[in-house]
């Protein structure tokens, strides 16, 4: 007999912050009501199979964190910036334009009519059944940012969004972003998740993009929270005709890190490119779940993820390509390579193909292994120290993806953080 499932604690269903337009408050309430019976994922929940054991939510973590504080972002910001602290936008710390053709607004500043329009679109890119925790964000967000690009609008510099949690007490934060990109508009959005403080906290974030015909969006996502932060994040994307979405996700492990990235190619000729790098050490965890749905014909997708797990850490990758019945002439490629640096560590990967159309070209490849002994020997025989050779080869394993990050400041931050990781991972070699 099946034991009764553990449900999400009711303590998590009390949103704080009432300074929102009425339609958003109503939406929040409605989503909250739908979560009353939400079962917590277990080992038997297929999309949480490898990660449910890391999810440890206590009632102390249910209350929303206070919405004041300072930011300690690692990024030197060369563009516009919006700072969220504990899920709420801090206007005084932020610097961003609000132009006629590019509106960047806090949820709290929306008129009722604008809020009603947003309510229609929120959650439209994420399937509530597949991404269980996205609904919790909608039931709990206290603030959020909506970015609307009118046709042909292009922001002249990248927009940085710093999500910081201040963990001076136990609690949770629910940052939310919605990007509505009009026809042929362009934007580079950088999201950085960081933390300060030592108490156990829970971050549940959702970012959504809707791309109209010909829109071109680049999203860079850095997950750099501390050892006290359990983070479940989701990114949802829908793409119309000939639009292009590029994503670079860089993740450093933590007690629980989960990112669901879902892209739906809904218009002919849409194209997406998803890159991901994950490194974990000590007893850290990181889990990436990606889904690319080819709904319309003639779309291209290209996905490359690399994981490195050291010490006793655990990295998970699950990539799914789903070709719908009418999506003829689809091209989909997925590659996932993993490096296991220690026998105490674990890597689980599941590259899935689900195909209902015949005239398609789909391929996926996955490998798990260690550094190539011959390459190591080659370097060592030329006078390079063993440790340095290890670092070189490991760096080479992911550098291909790191160098593709289109914003230099982000690249530098990532490389600095990676060398820190290598210093620790190859200490005793």
């Amino acid at each position: 007999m099946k034991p009764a499932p553990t449900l999400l604690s009711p303590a998590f269903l009390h949103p704080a912050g009432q300074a929102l337009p009425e339609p958003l408050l109503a939406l929040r309430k409605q989503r909250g009501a739908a979560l009353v019976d939400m079962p917590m994922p277990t080992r038997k929940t297929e999309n949480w199979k490898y990660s449910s054991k890391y999810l440890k939510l206590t009632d102390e973590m249910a209350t929303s964190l206070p919405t004041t504080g300072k930011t300690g972002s690692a990024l030197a910001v060369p563009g516009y910036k919006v700072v969220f602290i504990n899920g709420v936008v801090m206007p005084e710390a932020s610097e961003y334009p609000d132009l006629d053709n590019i509106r960047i607004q806090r949820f709290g500043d929306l008129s009722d009519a604008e809020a009603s329009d947003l309510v229609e679109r929120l959650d439209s890119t994420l399937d509530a059944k597949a991404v269980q925790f996205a609904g919790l964000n909608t039931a709990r967000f206290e603030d959020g940012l909506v970015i609307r690009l009118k046709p042909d609008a292009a922001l002249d510099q990248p927009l940085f969004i710093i999500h910081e949690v201040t963990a001076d007490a136990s609690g949770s934060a629910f940052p939310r972003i919605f990007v509505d990109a009009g026809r042929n508009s362009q934007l580079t959005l950088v999201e950085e998740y960081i933390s300060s403080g030592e108490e156990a906290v829970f971050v549940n974030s959702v970012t959504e993009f809707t791309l109209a015909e010909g829109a071109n969006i680049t999203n860079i996502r850095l997950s750099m929270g501390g050892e006290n932060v359990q983070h479940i994040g989701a990114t949802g994307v829908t793409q119309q005709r000939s639009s292009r979405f590029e994503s670079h996700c860089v993740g450093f492990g933590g007690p629980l890190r989960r990112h669901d990235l879902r892209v739906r190619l809904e218009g002919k000729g849409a194209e997406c490119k998803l890159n991901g790098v994950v490194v974990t050490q000590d007893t850290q965890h990181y889990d990436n779940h990606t889904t690319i749905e080819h709904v319309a014909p003639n779309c291209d997708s290209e996905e490359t993820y690399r994981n490195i797990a050291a010490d006793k850490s655990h990295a998970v990758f699950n990539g799914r390509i789903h070709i719908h019945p009418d999506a003829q002439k689809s091209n989909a490629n997925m590659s996932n390579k993993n490096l296991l640096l220690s026998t105490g560590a674990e890597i689980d990967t599941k590259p899935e193909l689900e195909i209902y159309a015949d005239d398609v070209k789909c391929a996926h490849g996955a490998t798990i292994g260690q550094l190539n002994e011959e390459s190591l020997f080659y370097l060592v025989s030329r006078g390079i120290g063993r440790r340095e050779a290890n670092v070189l080869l490991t760096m080479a394993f992911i550098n291909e993806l790191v160098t593709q990050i289109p914003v230099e400041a982000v690249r530098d931050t990532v490389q600095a953080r990676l060398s820190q990781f290598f210093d620790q991972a190859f200490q005793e070699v």
Partner: protein
Amino acid sequence: MTTANKEVNELIKREYEHGFVTDIEVDTFEPGLSEDVITRLSEIKKEPQFMLEWRLKAYRRWLEMEEPDWAHLGYDRIDYNSVSYYSAPKRKEDMPQSLDEVDPELLKTYEKLGIPLHEHAKLAGVAVDAVFDSVSVATTFKEPLAKAGVIFCSISEAVRDYPELVQKYLGTVVPHTDNFFAGLNAAVFSDGTFVYVPKGVRCPMELSTYFRINAANTGQFERTLIIADEGSYVSYLEGCTAPMRDENQLHAAVVELVALDNAEIKYSTVQNWYPGDENGKGGIYNFVTKRAACIGKNSKVSWTQVETGSAITWKYPSCILRGEGSVGEFYSVALTHNHQQADTGTKMIHLGKNTTSTIISKGISAGKSSNVYRGLVKFGPRAEGARNFTECDSLLIGDQCGAHTFPYIESLNKSAIVEHEATTSKVSDEQMFLCRQRGIDMERAVSMIVNGFCKDVFKELPMEFAVEAGKLLEVSLEGSVG
């Protein structure tokens, strides 16, 4: 390709050629399952007490289990109480002592199927154990095999004649608690094949079992146990057919292989159960648990399967690579047509040092069918230097079918290396054009392309099976280009 489509549709209407029913007197249990039924079954088979207890234990546990629903399959729930759990050809006295005593109707059935039970089978050089509905009806070439020391008999005989071997190994690879269908099988298995190859013996001929479901409304639950002792070698073939019936019939088999030090088992299957008609009516529900334990050092198990039949296939032949340096191989061609659904693949569990495995899976879907590869490759923390190579390719024929790949890869050892690749494609217009331009007709061209696609697997099959498999594929695919 509309003109092609038309030709194709005309060609598609090829029927299942093993769909006849043998009219024979049978003893069949009333439908239903209870401890009583199991006790009666055990009595009829004159089993020792330990077997009955084992069955009842499995049955009680099975009652608490839930039918799995994770597979990518759609079918109505099975009512396990509407199935009859035993059906056997009626016989006047005990087991027939030689082929001459076997009911001639039965022999005719096997002749029709092309299975060499009679003496002319000597030419074929294959020893056959024929299983008709619930019981084994004949086993050939017992004597020459006995001379070599090989035990090849029905599992019912083995339970009576070699209880110590059966007790030692039965359920050690697939315990009755393993899964829902294996639990059901442990409770009600009616017959099957038992093979024991003693130390250092290379089995002098191919062993083969032919399974035939005949009676209506019955399930078939056979159990196969093969033990290869140190340094031995055996090659085993399995084939299956069933009559065409409108209702679905259940087949839930368990196969256990045990390979000790330096032993090698080669297990080949050509599965051709009735797949249902073109509207998806009828056909066999095939829920099979096959697993091999490579206990010994440098032992090797190789699974080769050609799956063309069944309305539903749920089957994952697996290898547990425990012995140092042991090797697991899986070669599969799974073809689905019309409304067939297959969810099949393998599990390679690497526990020992320097264990290696290879997986080559070819899925072909046509019509409105669904074809899934689902596999697991796992390296335990002590699998130093273990290696796996996986290649799973899908071929789609027609735009209403589905081809899916769900590979699970788990590694806990840094020196283990796994490589997985998968591709999906279709029979391309260019390939067809090239063939047609050279005067090769449509049907022949498809069959050539598909044969090329499956070549890696077919070359692993024993010769006579490879021929059969090639023909089977040709029949099943006839004209399905679109």
